[in-house]
Protein backbone atom coordinates (compact mmCIF):
# COMPACT_ATOMS: atom_id res chain seq x y z
CA UNK A 1 0.00 0.00 0.00
CA UNK A 2 2.88 2.27 0.67
CA UNK A 3 4.07 1.60 -2.82
CA UNK A 4 0.74 2.55 -4.35
CA UNK A 5 0.95 6.00 -2.87
CA UNK A 6 4.50 6.40 -4.08
CA UNK A 7 3.58 5.19 -7.55
CA UNK A 8 0.68 7.57 -7.59
CA UNK A 9 2.80 10.52 -6.56
CA UNK A 10 5.49 9.53 -9.01
CA UNK A 11 2.95 9.13 -11.77
CA UNK A 12 1.31 12.44 -11.06
CA UNK A 13 4.66 14.22 -10.99
CA UNK A 14 5.77 12.68 -14.25
CA UNK A 15 2.45 13.43 -15.87
CA UNK A 16 2.66 17.01 -14.73
CA UNK A 17 6.18 17.22 -16.11
CA UNK A 18 5.02 15.80 -19.42
CA UNK A 19 2.19 18.31 -19.57
CA UNK A 20 4.52 21.14 -18.72
CA UNK A 21 6.83 20.01 -21.49
CA UNK A 22 3.99 19.91 -23.97
CA UNK A 23 2.76 23.28 -22.92
CA UNK A 24 6.06 25.01 -23.55
CA UNK A 25 7.00 22.99 -26.62
CA UNK A 26 8.13 24.74 -29.73
CA UNK A 27 5.50 24.48 -32.37
CA UNK A 28 6.19 22.84 -35.68
CA UNK A 29 8.75 20.24 -36.49
CA UNK A 30 12.53 20.22 -36.12
CA UNK A 31 14.56 20.03 -39.32
CA UNK A 32 16.09 16.63 -39.74
CA UNK A 33 18.94 15.99 -42.12
CA UNK A 34 17.71 16.02 -45.69
CA UNK A 35 19.51 15.98 -49.01
CA UNK A 36 16.90 17.97 -50.81
CA UNK A 37 17.29 21.56 -51.72
CA UNK A 38 14.95 23.50 -53.88
CA UNK A 39 11.41 22.73 -54.87
CA UNK A 40 10.17 19.19 -55.39
CA UNK A 41 9.89 18.06 -59.00
CA UNK A 42 6.45 18.22 -60.54
CA UNK A 43 5.03 15.63 -62.87
CA UNK A 44 2.57 16.33 -65.63
CA UNK A 45 -0.57 14.33 -65.06
CA UNK A 46 -1.69 12.67 -68.27
CA UNK A 47 -5.35 13.34 -68.95
CA UNK A 48 -6.25 11.03 -71.81
CA UNK A 49 -5.24 7.65 -70.39
CA UNK A 50 -7.43 4.72 -71.33
CA UNK A 51 -6.18 1.31 -70.26
CA UNK A 52 -9.31 -0.78 -70.30
CA UNK A 53 -7.35 -3.94 -70.99
CA UNK A 54 -5.59 -3.58 -67.62
CA UNK A 55 -7.68 -4.92 -64.73
CA UNK A 56 -5.55 -3.09 -62.15
CA UNK A 57 -5.90 0.25 -63.89
CA UNK A 58 -9.63 -0.21 -64.44
CA UNK A 59 -10.13 -0.97 -60.76
CA UNK A 60 -7.99 1.97 -59.64
CA UNK A 61 -9.66 4.30 -62.10
CA UNK A 62 -13.09 3.35 -60.83
CA UNK A 63 -11.99 3.83 -57.22
CA UNK A 64 -10.37 7.13 -58.13
CA UNK A 65 -7.17 6.23 -56.33
CA UNK A 66 -4.03 4.23 -56.94
CA UNK A 67 -2.64 2.22 -54.01
CA UNK A 68 1.15 1.99 -54.08
CA UNK A 69 3.20 -0.13 -51.69
CA UNK A 70 6.34 1.64 -50.54
CA UNK A 71 8.86 1.44 -47.70
CA UNK A 72 8.34 3.78 -44.78
CA UNK A 73 11.75 3.34 -43.17
CA UNK A 74 14.40 3.96 -45.82
CA UNK A 75 15.68 7.55 -45.72
CA UNK A 76 16.08 8.99 -49.19
CA UNK A 77 14.04 6.22 -50.84
CA UNK A 78 10.79 5.71 -49.01
CA UNK A 79 10.72 7.32 -45.59
CA UNK A 80 7.80 8.51 -43.56
CA UNK A 81 9.39 10.98 -41.22
CA UNK A 82 8.22 11.25 -37.66
CA UNK A 83 5.27 13.63 -37.74
CA UNK A 84 4.89 13.65 -41.52
CA UNK A 85 1.69 12.34 -43.03
CA UNK A 86 3.25 11.38 -46.37
CA UNK A 87 6.41 9.40 -47.11
CA UNK A 88 9.20 10.94 -49.15
CA UNK A 89 12.18 9.74 -51.16
CA UNK A 90 13.30 8.59 -54.59
CA UNK A 91 10.90 5.63 -54.71
CA UNK A 92 8.09 8.01 -53.83
CA UNK A 93 9.06 10.40 -56.64
CA UNK A 94 9.18 7.50 -59.11
CA UNK A 95 5.79 6.34 -57.83
CA UNK A 96 4.33 9.84 -58.25
CA UNK A 97 5.68 10.23 -61.77
CA UNK A 98 4.44 6.81 -62.83
CA UNK A 99 1.05 7.56 -61.31
CA UNK A 100 1.00 10.84 -63.21
CA UNK A 101 1.72 8.91 -66.41
CA UNK A 102 -1.27 6.73 -65.63
CA UNK A 103 -3.50 9.73 -65.08
CA UNK A 104 -3.51 9.91 -61.28
CA UNK A 105 -2.90 13.18 -59.44
CA UNK A 106 -0.60 13.11 -56.36
CA UNK A 107 -3.60 13.40 -54.05
CA UNK A 108 -5.13 10.33 -55.70
CA UNK A 109 -2.26 8.12 -54.56
CA UNK A 110 -2.53 6.11 -51.37
CA UNK A 111 0.85 5.01 -50.03
CA UNK A 112 0.77 1.77 -48.07
CA UNK A 113 3.67 0.50 -46.03
CA UNK A 114 5.17 -2.77 -47.22
CA UNK A 115 8.11 -4.64 -45.76
CA UNK A 116 10.40 -6.84 -47.83
CA UNK A 117 8.60 -10.01 -46.86
CA UNK A 118 5.08 -9.03 -47.92
CA UNK A 119 5.57 -7.34 -51.28
CA UNK A 120 4.62 -10.36 -53.39
CA UNK A 121 1.54 -11.31 -51.34
CA UNK A 122 0.32 -7.68 -51.37
CA UNK A 123 0.47 -7.65 -55.18
CA UNK A 124 -1.03 -11.11 -55.54
CA UNK A 125 -4.11 -10.39 -53.48
CA UNK A 126 -4.61 -6.85 -54.71
CA UNK A 127 -3.87 -5.03 -51.44
CA UNK A 128 -1.71 -2.70 -53.49
CA UNK A 129 -1.81 -1.87 -57.22
CA UNK A 130 1.91 -1.22 -57.58
CA UNK A 131 5.01 -1.75 -55.47
CA UNK A 132 7.85 0.78 -55.59
CA UNK A 133 9.89 -0.37 -52.59
CA UNK A 134 13.59 -1.08 -53.28
CA UNK A 135 12.23 -4.09 -55.13
CA UNK A 136 14.97 -6.08 -56.86
CA UNK A 137 13.94 -7.78 -60.10
CA UNK A 138 14.90 -11.46 -60.08
CA UNK A 139 13.74 -14.67 -61.70
CA UNK A 140 12.23 -16.18 -58.56
CA UNK A 141 10.02 -13.11 -58.10
CA UNK A 142 9.16 -12.93 -61.82
CA UNK A 143 7.37 -16.24 -61.35
CA UNK A 144 4.76 -14.62 -59.10
CA UNK A 145 4.71 -10.93 -60.08
CA UNK A 146 5.56 -8.80 -63.10
CA UNK A 147 8.10 -5.99 -63.14
CA UNK A 148 8.21 -2.71 -65.02
CA UNK A 149 11.54 -0.93 -65.13
CA UNK A 150 14.21 -1.16 -63.85
CA UNK A 151 14.26 2.47 -62.85
CA UNK A 152 17.53 2.21 -60.95
CA UNK A 153 20.42 -0.27 -60.86
CA UNK A 154 21.40 -0.58 -57.23
CA UNK A 155 24.26 -2.70 -55.97
CA UNK A 156 25.34 -3.90 -52.58
CA UNK A 157 27.78 -1.36 -51.25
CA UNK A 158 29.33 -0.17 -47.99
CA UNK A 159 28.55 2.86 -45.85
CA UNK A 160 31.55 4.01 -43.78
CA UNK A 161 32.70 7.01 -41.77
CA UNK A 162 34.15 9.75 -43.91
CA UNK A 163 37.76 9.09 -42.79
CA UNK A 164 37.53 5.29 -43.08
CA UNK A 165 40.25 3.31 -44.86
CA UNK A 166 37.78 0.76 -46.24
CA UNK A 167 37.61 1.11 -50.01
CA UNK A 168 35.75 -2.03 -50.99
CA UNK A 169 34.47 -5.38 -49.82
CA UNK A 170 37.98 -6.89 -49.91
CA UNK A 171 39.02 -4.60 -47.04
CA UNK A 172 36.38 -6.14 -44.79
CA UNK A 173 38.68 -8.86 -43.45
CA UNK A 174 38.42 -8.81 -39.65
CA UNK A 175 36.22 -5.73 -39.81
CA UNK A 176 32.76 -5.46 -38.29
CA UNK A 177 30.05 -4.96 -40.85
CA UNK A 178 26.37 -4.49 -40.08
CA UNK A 179 23.17 -5.35 -41.95
CA UNK A 180 19.57 -6.43 -41.33
CA UNK A 181 18.89 -9.86 -39.84
CA UNK A 182 18.24 -12.48 -42.51
CA UNK A 183 18.42 -10.03 -45.45
CA UNK A 184 20.06 -10.90 -48.78
CA UNK A 185 22.99 -8.48 -48.22
CA UNK A 186 23.65 -10.11 -44.84
CA UNK A 187 23.56 -13.59 -46.38
CA UNK A 188 25.91 -12.48 -49.15
CA UNK A 189 28.48 -11.28 -46.59
CA UNK A 190 28.33 -14.65 -44.79
CA UNK A 191 28.84 -16.53 -48.05
CA UNK A 192 31.34 -14.40 -49.96
CA UNK A 193 33.21 -12.52 -47.25
CA UNK A 194 33.34 -14.94 -44.31
CA UNK A 195 36.40 -13.14 -42.88
CA UNK A 196 34.25 -10.13 -42.03
CA UNK A 197 32.44 -10.08 -38.68
CA UNK A 198 28.77 -9.74 -39.48
CA UNK A 199 26.45 -7.93 -37.07
CA UNK A 200 22.70 -7.98 -37.70
CA UNK A 201 19.84 -5.94 -36.23
CA UNK A 202 16.17 -5.63 -37.07
CA UNK A 203 16.52 -2.18 -38.65
CA UNK A 204 19.18 -0.33 -40.63
CA UNK A 205 18.95 2.68 -38.36
CA UNK A 206 20.42 0.57 -35.53
CA UNK A 207 23.30 -0.32 -37.85
CA UNK A 208 23.85 3.35 -38.65
CA UNK A 209 23.82 4.20 -34.95
CA UNK A 210 26.48 1.53 -34.40
CA UNK A 211 28.53 3.01 -37.24
CA UNK A 212 28.30 6.47 -35.73
CA UNK A 213 29.37 5.22 -32.32
CA UNK A 214 32.21 3.18 -33.80
CA UNK A 215 30.81 -0.19 -32.74
CA UNK A 216 30.94 -1.37 -36.36
CA UNK A 217 33.22 -0.34 -39.23
CA UNK A 218 30.72 -0.47 -42.07
CA UNK A 219 27.05 -0.89 -42.90
CA UNK A 220 26.16 -2.90 -45.97
CA UNK A 221 23.09 -3.09 -48.20
CA UNK A 222 22.00 -1.64 -51.55
CA UNK A 223 23.82 1.59 -52.37
CA UNK A 224 20.56 3.48 -52.84
CA UNK A 225 19.57 2.83 -49.24
CA UNK A 226 23.07 3.75 -48.04
CA UNK A 227 22.97 6.96 -50.07
CA UNK A 228 19.86 7.94 -48.16
CA UNK A 229 21.66 7.55 -44.83
CA UNK A 230 24.77 9.33 -46.14
CA UNK A 231 22.63 12.22 -47.32
CA UNK A 232 21.03 12.38 -43.88
CA UNK A 233 24.36 12.44 -42.02
CA UNK A 234 25.46 15.85 -43.36
CA UNK A 235 28.88 14.63 -44.43
CA UNK A 236 29.85 12.37 -41.53
CA UNK A 237 29.24 9.18 -43.52
CA UNK A 238 30.02 8.22 -47.10
CA UNK A 239 29.17 5.44 -49.52
CA UNK A 240 32.29 3.60 -50.71
CA UNK A 241 30.93 3.40 -54.27
CA UNK A 242 32.18 -0.02 -55.32
CA UNK A 243 29.01 -2.05 -55.68
CA UNK A 244 29.61 -5.79 -55.56
CA UNK A 245 26.23 -7.01 -56.78
CA UNK A 246 23.57 -5.91 -59.23
CA UNK A 247 20.12 -5.15 -57.88
CA UNK A 248 17.92 -3.69 -60.61
CA UNK A 249 15.00 -1.96 -58.86
CA UNK A 250 11.71 -2.53 -60.63
CA UNK A 251 8.11 -1.55 -60.16
CA UNK A 252 6.13 -4.61 -59.12
CA UNK A 253 2.65 -5.22 -60.47
CA UNK A 254 0.19 -8.09 -60.66
CA UNK A 255 1.29 -10.98 -62.87
CA UNK A 256 -0.04 -10.86 -66.40
CA UNK A 257 -1.12 -7.21 -66.55
CA UNK A 258 0.87 -6.49 -69.71
CA UNK A 259 -1.05 -3.37 -70.69
CA UNK A 260 -0.20 -1.71 -67.38
CA UNK A 261 3.42 -2.82 -67.56
CA UNK A 262 3.83 -1.31 -71.04
CA UNK A 263 2.22 1.94 -69.93
CA UNK A 264 4.53 2.20 -66.91
CA UNK A 265 7.59 1.42 -69.00
CA UNK A 266 6.51 4.14 -71.44
CA UNK A 267 6.23 6.74 -68.73
CA UNK A 268 9.53 5.63 -67.15
CA UNK A 269 11.24 6.03 -70.51
CA UNK A 270 9.82 9.51 -70.94
CA UNK A 271 10.83 10.40 -67.39
CA UNK A 272 14.38 9.28 -68.03
CA UNK A 273 14.76 11.05 -71.37
CA UNK A 274 13.33 14.44 -70.40
CA UNK A 275 15.59 14.95 -67.39
CA UNK A 276 12.95 14.53 -64.70
CA UNK A 277 14.58 11.30 -63.47
CA UNK A 278 17.78 13.19 -62.71
CA UNK A 279 15.86 15.95 -60.96
CA UNK A 280 14.03 13.44 -58.80
CA UNK A 281 17.25 11.64 -57.93
CA UNK A 282 19.10 14.79 -56.94
CA UNK A 283 16.12 16.03 -54.99
CA UNK A 284 16.11 12.93 -52.80
CA UNK A 285 19.47 11.14 -52.85
CA UNK A 286 22.01 13.82 -53.70
CA UNK A 287 24.49 14.06 -56.56
CA UNK A 288 23.74 11.84 -59.53
CA UNK A 289 27.30 12.01 -60.80
CA UNK A 290 28.46 8.77 -62.40
CA UNK A 291 25.05 7.22 -62.20
CA UNK A 292 23.68 5.59 -65.31
CA UNK A 293 19.98 5.75 -65.94
CA UNK A 294 18.79 2.27 -66.90
CA UNK A 295 16.52 1.51 -69.85
CA UNK A 296 13.31 -0.32 -69.00
CA UNK A 297 13.53 -4.01 -69.80
CA UNK A 298 10.48 -4.95 -71.86
CA UNK A 299 10.72 -8.70 -71.38
Amino acid at each position, binding site marked *: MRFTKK*AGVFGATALAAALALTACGQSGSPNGGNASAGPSPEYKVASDVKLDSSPTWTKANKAGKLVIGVKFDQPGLGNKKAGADKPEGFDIEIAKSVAAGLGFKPEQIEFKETVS*KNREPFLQNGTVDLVVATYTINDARKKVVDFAGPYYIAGQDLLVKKDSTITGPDDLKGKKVCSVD*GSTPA*QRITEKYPDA*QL*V*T*YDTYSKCVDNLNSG*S*VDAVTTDDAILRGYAAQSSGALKVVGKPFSQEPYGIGLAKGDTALRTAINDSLEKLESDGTWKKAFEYTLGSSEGITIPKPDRY
Partner: protein
Amino acid sequence: MDAITSNLGLFASGFWGTIVLSFFTMVGSLIFGTVLAAMRVSPTPVLRAAATTYVNVVRNTPLTLVLFFCAFGLPYLQISFGNTTDQVSFNYAVLALTAYTSCFVCEAIRSGIATVPLGQAEAARSIGLTFTQSLRFIILPQGIRTVVPPLASVIIAMVKNTSIASGFNNKELISAMNGVIELRGDQVPLILAGTAIAYLILSIGLGQIFGLIERKVRIAR
Protein backbone atom coordinates in the same frame (compact mmCIF):
# COMPACT_ATOMS: atom_id res chain seq x y z
CA MET B 1 8.88 -29.28 -47.69
CA ASP B 2 12.21 -28.50 -49.30
CA ALA B 3 12.31 -25.04 -47.72
CA ILE B 4 12.71 -26.81 -44.37
CA THR B 5 14.76 -29.82 -45.40
CA SER B 6 17.28 -27.91 -47.48
CA ASN B 7 17.78 -25.40 -44.67
CA LEU B 8 17.82 -27.91 -41.86
CA GLY B 9 21.34 -26.85 -40.86
CA LEU B 10 20.24 -23.24 -40.43
CA PHE B 11 17.26 -24.27 -38.31
CA ALA B 12 19.38 -26.64 -36.23
CA SER B 13 21.90 -23.93 -35.41
CA GLY B 14 19.04 -21.54 -34.64
CA PHE B 15 17.50 -24.12 -32.32
CA TRP B 16 20.83 -24.62 -30.58
CA GLY B 17 21.24 -20.84 -30.33
CA THR B 18 17.89 -20.55 -28.55
CA ILE B 19 18.82 -23.36 -26.15
CA VAL B 20 22.22 -21.88 -25.23
CA LEU B 21 20.79 -18.38 -24.78
CA SER B 22 17.99 -19.78 -22.61
CA PHE B 23 20.33 -21.89 -20.50
CA PHE B 24 22.71 -19.08 -19.54
CA THR B 25 19.80 -16.72 -18.92
CA MET B 26 18.11 -19.31 -16.71
CA VAL B 27 21.19 -19.80 -14.53
CA GLY B 28 21.84 -16.06 -14.36
CA SER B 29 18.31 -15.04 -13.52
CA LEU B 30 17.82 -17.77 -10.90
CA ILE B 31 20.92 -16.51 -9.07
CA PHE B 32 20.27 -12.79 -9.47
CA GLY B 33 16.55 -13.21 -8.85
CA THR B 34 17.26 -14.93 -5.52
CA VAL B 35 19.66 -12.17 -4.54
CA LEU B 36 17.01 -9.58 -5.40
CA ALA B 37 14.41 -11.46 -3.36
CA ALA B 38 16.78 -11.61 -0.42
CA MET B 39 17.40 -7.88 -0.72
CA ARG B 40 13.67 -7.20 -0.79
CA VAL B 41 13.14 -8.91 2.57
CA SER B 42 16.45 -7.84 4.14
CA PRO B 43 16.77 -5.76 7.36
CA THR B 44 18.60 -2.94 5.56
CA PRO B 45 16.13 -0.34 4.28
CA VAL B 46 18.46 0.84 1.52
CA LEU B 47 18.80 -2.65 0.07
CA ARG B 48 15.04 -3.09 0.24
CA ALA B 49 14.46 0.19 -1.53
CA ALA B 50 17.11 -0.50 -4.16
CA ALA B 51 15.71 -3.92 -5.01
CA THR B 52 12.12 -2.64 -5.05
CA THR B 53 13.00 0.23 -7.35
CA TYR B 54 14.98 -2.03 -9.64
CA VAL B 55 12.18 -4.57 -9.93
CA ASN B 56 9.52 -1.93 -10.54
CA VAL B 57 11.52 -0.13 -13.21
CA VAL B 58 12.84 -3.10 -15.17
CA ARG B 59 9.69 -5.19 -14.91
CA ASN B 60 7.67 -2.36 -16.41
CA THR B 61 10.00 -1.81 -19.36
CA PRO B 62 9.32 -3.75 -22.56
CA LEU B 63 12.00 -6.37 -23.13
CA THR B 64 12.93 -4.92 -26.53
CA LEU B 65 13.91 -1.73 -24.74
CA VAL B 66 15.94 -3.58 -22.10
CA LEU B 67 17.77 -5.40 -24.89
CA PHE B 68 18.28 -2.12 -26.70
CA PHE B 69 19.82 -0.42 -23.67
CA CYS B 70 22.21 -3.32 -23.16
CA ALA B 71 23.22 -3.56 -26.81
CA PHE B 72 23.38 0.18 -27.50
CA GLY B 73 23.87 1.87 -24.12
CA LEU B 74 26.62 -0.31 -22.65
CA PRO B 75 29.05 0.22 -25.57
CA TYR B 76 28.99 3.93 -24.72
CA LEU B 77 30.06 2.99 -21.20
CA GLN B 78 32.79 0.86 -22.72
CA ILE B 79 31.33 -2.21 -21.07
CA SER B 80 31.62 -5.25 -23.30
CA PHE B 81 32.68 -8.83 -22.87
CA GLY B 82 33.99 -11.17 -25.52
CA ASN B 83 36.31 -11.05 -28.48
CA THR B 84 34.06 -11.43 -31.48
CA THR B 85 30.95 -9.38 -32.19
CA ASP B 86 28.83 -12.51 -31.89
CA GLN B 87 30.15 -13.18 -28.39
CA VAL B 88 29.64 -9.56 -27.36
CA SER B 89 26.06 -9.54 -28.64
CA PHE B 90 25.37 -12.89 -27.01
CA ASN B 91 26.64 -11.61 -23.67
CA TYR B 92 24.56 -8.43 -23.97
CA ALA B 93 21.50 -10.56 -24.70
CA VAL B 94 22.14 -12.84 -21.71
CA LEU B 95 22.66 -9.76 -19.54
CA ALA B 96 19.46 -8.09 -20.74
CA LEU B 97 17.36 -11.25 -20.50
CA THR B 98 18.79 -11.95 -17.05
CA ALA B 99 18.15 -8.41 -15.87
CA TYR B 100 14.55 -8.68 -17.07
CA THR B 101 13.76 -12.26 -16.00
CA SER B 102 15.33 -11.78 -12.55
CA CYS B 103 12.50 -9.41 -11.63
CA PHE B 104 9.94 -12.13 -12.24
CA VAL B 105 12.08 -14.73 -10.47
CA CYS B 106 12.38 -12.34 -7.52
CA GLU B 107 8.61 -11.84 -7.33
CA ALA B 108 7.97 -15.59 -7.55
CA ILE B 109 10.44 -16.31 -4.74
CA ARG B 110 9.12 -13.48 -2.62
CA SER B 111 5.60 -14.88 -2.84
CA GLY B 112 7.08 -18.27 -1.99
CA ILE B 113 8.69 -16.84 1.13
CA ALA B 114 5.34 -15.38 2.13
CA THR B 115 3.81 -18.87 2.14
CA VAL B 116 6.25 -20.16 4.78
CA PRO B 117 4.41 -20.08 8.14
CA LEU B 118 5.41 -17.19 10.41
CA GLY B 119 6.34 -19.60 13.22
CA GLN B 120 9.19 -20.98 11.14
CA ALA B 121 10.90 -17.62 10.93
CA GLU B 122 10.20 -16.84 14.57
CA ALA B 123 11.61 -20.19 15.64
CA ALA B 124 14.71 -19.61 13.53
CA ARG B 125 15.23 -16.25 15.17
CA SER B 126 14.65 -17.57 18.65
CA ILE B 127 17.40 -20.16 18.31
CA GLY B 128 19.72 -17.30 17.38
CA LEU B 129 20.01 -17.66 13.61
CA THR B 130 20.95 -14.47 11.80
CA PHE B 131 18.95 -13.11 8.87
CA THR B 132 21.14 -14.83 6.27
CA GLN B 133 21.13 -18.09 8.18
CA SER B 134 17.38 -18.20 8.69
CA LEU B 135 16.84 -17.36 5.03
CA ARG B 136 19.33 -19.96 3.85
CA PHE B 137 18.50 -22.87 6.12
CA ILE B 138 14.86 -22.36 7.07
CA ILE B 139 12.88 -20.08 4.78
CA LEU B 140 14.22 -20.60 1.27
CA PRO B 141 14.35 -24.43 1.34
CA GLN B 142 10.67 -24.45 2.28
CA GLY B 143 9.62 -21.53 0.13
CA ILE B 144 11.29 -22.94 -2.96
CA ARG B 145 8.75 -25.78 -3.07
CA THR B 146 5.69 -23.60 -3.50
CA VAL B 147 7.78 -21.55 -5.89
CA VAL B 148 8.41 -24.31 -8.44
CA PRO B 149 5.19 -23.90 -10.50
CA PRO B 150 5.34 -20.10 -10.85
CA LEU B 151 9.09 -20.31 -11.42
CA ALA B 152 8.48 -22.84 -14.19
CA SER B 153 6.18 -20.44 -16.01
CA VAL B 154 8.71 -17.63 -15.58
CA ILE B 155 11.44 -19.80 -17.14
CA ILE B 156 9.24 -21.00 -20.01
CA ALA B 157 8.19 -17.42 -20.74
CA MET B 158 11.88 -16.49 -20.74
CA VAL B 159 12.68 -19.17 -23.33
CA LYS B 160 10.06 -17.66 -25.61
CA ASN B 161 11.33 -14.17 -24.86
CA THR B 162 14.72 -15.09 -26.31
CA SER B 163 13.00 -14.67 -29.68
CA ILE B 164 13.18 -10.92 -29.19
CA ALA B 165 16.98 -11.10 -29.05
CA SER B 166 16.90 -11.97 -32.78
CA GLY B 167 16.78 -8.26 -33.52
CA PHE B 168 20.05 -7.74 -31.69
CA ASN B 169 22.56 -9.88 -33.58
CA ASN B 170 21.71 -13.18 -31.96
CA LYS B 171 21.50 -16.33 -34.01
CA GLU B 172 18.46 -18.19 -32.77
CA LEU B 173 15.22 -19.63 -34.09
CA ILE B 174 13.54 -16.43 -35.24
CA SER B 175 16.64 -15.17 -37.02
CA ALA B 176 16.98 -18.57 -38.71
CA MET B 177 13.33 -18.26 -39.74
CA ASN B 178 13.89 -14.76 -41.14
CA GLY B 179 16.87 -15.97 -43.16
CA VAL B 180 14.96 -18.89 -44.64
CA ILE B 181 11.93 -16.71 -45.48
CA GLU B 182 14.26 -14.37 -47.37
CA LEU B 183 15.50 -17.34 -49.42
CA ARG B 184 12.13 -19.04 -49.89
CA GLY B 185 9.44 -16.37 -49.84
CA ASP B 186 7.08 -18.82 -51.54
CA GLN B 187 6.87 -21.22 -48.58
CA VAL B 188 6.18 -18.86 -45.68
CA PRO B 189 3.40 -20.93 -44.01
CA LEU B 190 5.62 -24.00 -43.92
CA ILE B 191 8.58 -22.10 -42.49
CA LEU B 192 6.35 -20.57 -39.82
CA ALA B 193 5.03 -24.01 -38.92
CA GLY B 194 8.54 -25.43 -38.65
CA THR B 195 9.60 -22.63 -36.29
CA ALA B 196 6.46 -23.08 -34.23
CA ILE B 197 7.14 -26.80 -33.78
CA ALA B 198 10.68 -26.07 -32.59
CA TYR B 199 9.35 -23.68 -29.92
CA LEU B 200 6.66 -26.15 -28.88
CA ILE B 201 9.27 -28.87 -28.39
CA LEU B 202 11.19 -26.53 -26.10
CA SER B 203 8.30 -25.17 -24.05
CA ILE B 204 6.38 -28.42 -23.68
CA GLY B 205 9.60 -30.34 -22.95
CA LEU B 206 10.54 -27.83 -20.27
CA GLY B 207 7.02 -28.02 -18.85
CA GLN B 208 7.43 -31.79 -18.44
CA ILE B 209 10.80 -31.39 -16.70
CA PHE B 210 9.41 -28.84 -14.27
CA GLY B 211 6.40 -31.08 -13.66
CA LEU B 212 8.80 -33.83 -12.60
CA ILE B 213 10.71 -31.51 -10.29
CA GLU B 214 7.45 -30.30 -8.79
CA ARG B 215 6.36 -33.85 -7.98
CA LYS B 216 9.78 -34.62 -6.49
CA VAL B 217 9.86 -31.69 -4.08
CA ARG B 218 6.23 -32.13 -3.17
CA ILE B 219 6.89 -35.65 -1.87
CA ALA B 220 9.75 -34.37 0.24
CA ARG B 221 7.43 -32.10 2.20
